[in-house]
């Protein structure tokens, strides 16, 4: 089989000429292909008013399904809940609801919707839309990870589990087109915070029913928030454009916002330094090796937020079934050294789990650094100077970006501290992320690196995790007394008393029983030039409503100063 197209292209030329022609052809095809390809990646689009590097590629923008911060930070622009977070304090303020009443027992909330609510595509937003959105988030078919945020509603958990089929039995109903009544299982002081979380956002029923699972990609996509989704190109960018029909559109600061997923910290820093990005708001996008230098710059902003780095014990195995052993290990850690030497971004050492500054709560003091007492406790447990203490493993995960290095360095530091102070020997086990999660779930570990970011601003989001049946417990530690305390706190309407009960529970967790050792509280780092970007405030939820952010050009700034 022999083809001869090249020959027939040049009739009359001899065979040698044909061969030259063949090479010419190849050359021409390659060159013209090259030019064509190079021109193929031009895209003519208006420039954005604001470009934000947003961390990981969003998994989904469906508010009922999303779970991560990059997703929340985009969805917050596209949809709104009954309340929203104040950009400065991160406390709930009126959103689509202009006001509410709460019954004296704290179990019934009546919300009044604003009278000027319209979808971005036209048509009113009504109480029925609210009910639909919440029921949808709870419906088993939606398969929402965060449906649990709505379990405070009466019958919600049973409805989600399929034990109740009739959605009208769930504790939410529309009294009239502008009024929604919600019934809760028990008084929930942070319920207004819940009403600002994405899982409760008001979403467009008709679009969802028409397009099904991938309704977010429907055009036009009705939005209830300050922005509409202009487009979403995977691993490229999400572009939002202002929704002129939003109830507070007059105060939306930027018309077009681009949110770019960036996987590599050095790419993020390069794009920022070269002026291709205005705002970088993911701590993972700060190159670890440069953290010391960068945090001294005026455009790098550190702030505390609701997140704790801690170690889990698997308390079902010897010798970690003995609280004295767990206490000893906790007391032998010099946490100050870890934050000064390894993390280096201004983190505070943690002796307790619930971060300082959490609403409705004053934290308790847990175990500090006391190697003498640590040795004493270990001896009491039957291991004087670590004699007879079995070798054990510390499990930590591989991660993207700088986090991997930090996990590993902390592991090495702990290994050394425990060897020097207690005479015990630990091996390190690094696992790929999903394998690590699976090991935690099956209690297939001795000690494991862990962290937790609060879902809402209340101690419950941290302390509730270690009740016997919670899926996030992952330590094998079960205490009826602890469960009773958490339950009692959640029935309590008096916030001061509630806080005291939570304190008792936390003391149990971090001083007496110690199924976990808190190491430090995370700090967040955003980077942007405060002379150019306005409306980003450091708050404890690290939450930044998009409609408040704007870029001021030097010119307009001069004008505004005059």
């Amino acid at each position, binding site marked *: *089989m022999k083809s001869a197209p090249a020959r027939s292209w040049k009739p009359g030329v001899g065979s040698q000429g044909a061969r030259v022609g063949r090479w010419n052809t190849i050359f021409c095809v390659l060159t013209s292909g*090259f030019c064509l390809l190079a021109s193929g990646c031009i895209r003519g689009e208006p420039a954005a008013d604001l470009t934000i590097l947003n961390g990981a590629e969003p*998994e989904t923008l469906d508010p009922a399904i999303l779970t991560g911060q990059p997703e929340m930070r985009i969805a917050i622009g596209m949809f709104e809940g009954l309340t929203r977070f104040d950009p400065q304090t991160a406390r709930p303020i009126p959103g689509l609801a202009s006001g509410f009443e709460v019954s004296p027992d704290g179990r019934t909330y009546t919300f009044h919707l604003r009278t000027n609510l319209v979808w971005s595509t036209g048509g009113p937003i009504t109480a029925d839309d609210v009910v639909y959105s919440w029921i949808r988030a709870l419906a088993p078919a939606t398969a929402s990870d965060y449906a649990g945020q709505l379990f405070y509603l009466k019958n919600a958990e049973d409805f989600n589990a399929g034990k109740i089929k009739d959605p009208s039995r769930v504790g939410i109903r529309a009294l009239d087109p502008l009024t929604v009544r919600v019934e809760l299982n028990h008084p929930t002081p942070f319920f207004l915070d819940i009403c600002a979380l994405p899982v409760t956002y008001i979403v467009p029923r008709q679009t969802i029913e028409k397009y099904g699972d991938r309704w977010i990609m429907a055009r036009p996509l009705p939005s209830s928030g300050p922005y509409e989704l202009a487009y979403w190109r995977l691993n490229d960018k999400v572009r939002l454009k202002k929704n002129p029909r939003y109830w507070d559109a007059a105060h939306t600061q930027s018309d077009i916002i681009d949110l770019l997923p960036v996987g590599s910290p050095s790419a993020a820093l390069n794009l920022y330094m*070269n002026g291709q990005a205005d705002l970088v708001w993911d701590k993972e996008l700060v190159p670890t090796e440069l953290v010391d230098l960068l945090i001294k710059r005026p455009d790098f902003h550190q702030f505390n937020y609701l997140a704790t780095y801690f170690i889990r014990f698997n308390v079902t195995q010897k010798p970690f079934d003995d609280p004295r052993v767990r206490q000893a290990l906790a007391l032998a850690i010099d946490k100050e050294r870890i934050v000064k030497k390894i993390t280096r971004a201004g983190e505070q050492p943690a002796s307790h789990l619930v971060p300082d500054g959490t609403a409705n709560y004053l934290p308790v003091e847990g175990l500090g650094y006391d190697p003498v007492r640590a040795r004493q406790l270990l001896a009491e447990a039957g291991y004087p100077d670590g004699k007879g203490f079995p070798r054990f493993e510390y499990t930590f995960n591989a991660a993207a970006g700088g986090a991997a290095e930090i996990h590993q360095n902390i592991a090495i530091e702990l290994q050394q501290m425990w060897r020097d102070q207690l005479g015990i020997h630990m091996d390190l086990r690094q696992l790929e992320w999903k394998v690590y999660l699976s090991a935690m779930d099956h209690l297939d570990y001795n000690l494991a690196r862990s962290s937790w970011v609060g879902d809402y601003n209340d101690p419950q989001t941290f302390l509730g995790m270690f009740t016997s049946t919670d899926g996030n417990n992952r330590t094998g530690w079960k205490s009826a007394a602890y469960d009773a305390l958490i339950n009692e706190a959640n029935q309590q309407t008096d916030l001061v008393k509630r806080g005291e009960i939570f304190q008792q529970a936390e003391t149990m967790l971090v001083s007496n029983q110690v199924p976990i050792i808190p190491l430090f509280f995370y700090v967040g780092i955003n980077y942007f030039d405060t002379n150019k970007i306005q409306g980003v405030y450091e708050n404890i939820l690290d939450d930044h409503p998009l409609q408040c952010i704007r870029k001021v050009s030097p010119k307009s700034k001069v004008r505004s100063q005059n």
Partner: protein
Amino acid sequence: MYFLKRLFFAIPLLLVISALAFWLVHIAPGGPFDRERAPASPEIERNLEAKYHLNEPVWKQYLRYLDGLVHGDFGPSLKYRDHTVNDIIAQGLPVSMTLGSLAFCFALGIGLPLGFFTAARRGRWEDYAGSFLATLAVCVPGFVLAPFLVVVFAIKLKWLPVALWESPAQAILPMIALGAYSAGKVARLFREGMLNAMQSEFITAARAKGMGENRLLFKHAVRIAVLPVVSYSGPMLADLLTGSFIIENIFQIPGIGVFLINGALNRDYTVVVGLALLYAVLLIALNLAVDFAYTWLDPRVKYE
């Protein structure tokens, strides 16, 4: 006839590949819906598994997957739940293919002349310099070369953008970073081929007949010398076209390479199997193209 036969045999091959990929990715520990925060109740997890049929036996899931495949449906992504695998391929593949083709052109455009030049100047300093360059290109990995190029050309000299994928200028650095290895490889293969060809009998015969050295090199040696490059081109092109995790990550390019690696890490079953199949199809097609090109370039080669 031969090529039709080859195409026909590709089908069972693809079936085996898909089954193997499907099985391997399912036996890896952890699943697509394992997260740091466990859902509030076990039912939530069951709802998720039921929605994506993960509660069924693997063979049944595989049959379900094949059924979709027959209808041109690669299934929904389990990680990016607003997108199907078809969406991911449709958006990422053109980008990766554009970059890959550019890198391919770069590899041949630099590699062939360099190989020819070093062979023609064999044993002189030009040969050593050129061969050193080619070896360097093969030895320096992309994750070293790419940041180096960015630092020099984007940050210090400010000639080119640091990253992103919007204008042709943004394609230049990733093209070089991606194509450098192949360029070096092509140069070495071509040089080797040229030297071998120059020692063969028909060249000696031509030389004895008094044919000029340039004519000898260009007309006769090249045709034989290029054959190893051609056979390397098929897998090389398949490799370049399907994207590179490292290059796409460093230059923030919305290609398909990132999805293949992250898909595996995220246990995004459908994405992994879909992209593995895509890679397999490309590899089979390009190998076929290579064999086809052989018959065109070398009249001695015939397939039955």
